[in-house]
């Protein structure tokens, strides 16, 4: 098993090299003729107004808060899913309670309007 992780590491390194190589190649062979107008930010052809790095209202921030909670909770379900067969009825009832709490959380968020487009 440890050796398998070694393989995964080798694969990741080979992949990273493969991905970085083209950047080196274009740095060597791509033509360069930049001038200030070319380096301007594209904004449909008119002169750029201001920066994009300004305050921006991310309208789905409530979704993201709910997401963090749910994503962590779903991770808890994976170990159970693997042993569900041998766990039997007791494990099933326990996970059902967990699932019901999870669902209640979703219903709560829904009723509170967290899943609305604010």
């Amino acid at each position, binding site marked *: 098993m440890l050796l398998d992780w070694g*393989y*995964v590491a080798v694969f990741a390194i080979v992949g990273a090299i493969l991905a970085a190589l083209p950047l080196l190649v274009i740095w060597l062979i791509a033509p360069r003729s930049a001038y200030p107008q070319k380096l301007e930010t594209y904004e449909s052809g008119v002169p750029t107004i201001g920066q994009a790095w300004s305050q921006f209202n991310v309208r789905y921030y409530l979704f993201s808060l709910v997401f963090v909670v749910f994503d962590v909770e779903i991770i808890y379900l994976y170990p159970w899913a693997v042993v*569900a067969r041998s766990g039997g009825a007791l494990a099933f009832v326990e996970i059902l309670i967990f699932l019901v709490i999870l669902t209640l959380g979703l219903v709560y968020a829904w009723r509170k309007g967290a899943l609305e487009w604010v």
Partner: protein
Amino acid sequence: MAATLLIDAIKSAVILGGVLTAFAYVTLLERRLLARFQLRVGPNRVGPLGLLQPLADGIKLIFKEHFVPAGADRLVYLVAPLITVVAALFVYAVIPIGPPVRLFGREVTLYVADVNIGVLLVLAASSIGVYGIILGGWASDNKYALLGGLRSSAQVISYELALGLAVLGVVLAAGSLSLVDIVRAQSHLWFIVTQPAAFVLFLIAAFAETNRAPFDLPEAEQELIAGYQTEYGGFTFAMFYLGEYVGVITMGALITTLFLGGWQGPLLPPVLWFLIKVFAVVCVFIWVRATLPRLRYDQLMALGWRVLVPAGLLNLAVTALVIVARG
């Protein structure tokens, strides 16, 4: 030890090379098929049937001028496409293409590694890919790019859960997180038969995860020029493109592995079966793109949270009930 490492390095190189070739030809397949759907012919001039078109595109993109916009955050701007590509390729470390075969008197497995948490590794890698998109959108200092990046993150937080819940159904049925074990568990009956709801959930979430139509909001060209790719050109643009299309192939390979019995099939050699199934799923992706119009942003989030997540939870509970009841 040295021999196994060498075999592994060769295997990695072959799989990566295969994936990159597949990427090149999926771009051609998409252009040809979309053209057919729209009663056009599509690119057919470069080589027989246009088969050299991807090569011509690649050469063109390499020789394009490379520059970084003056306002951009240089480091993040260059790292972002790298993240996308590495994350997209990384998944193939654990996807089994076929059963072990004997080559030159040696048992060779047709996957790089069989780790016991393969499914989690795949899900993690596919969600890292979105960081490349968000960072690229942010680093460009372009309003369209920023909006594209934000939309991409909205999509991930809406569909990641559905994806995870759909996979959970399969994990329950197989009793393992290893992709090889999951394929073996389908030797009698594919999981698409026993887990149809999970399959539909996974398919829909897969469209969203790969930013494909009808969920292609991050690069909606009618609204956002090119979304997060607006300030990218030449080969860095090609890298984002690669990330997207390798993602499509990845989802094809995952659907094949999780629901369509992986390499298993009668008569034909296993690897060929695997490729046929992946090809079929990729064709479905293209077909859907040609058929469905784009969803609105809030509709997309509502569909994810109010339909797919409850459906996923319900599917999980029913699956668990059936499995425990049958012992």
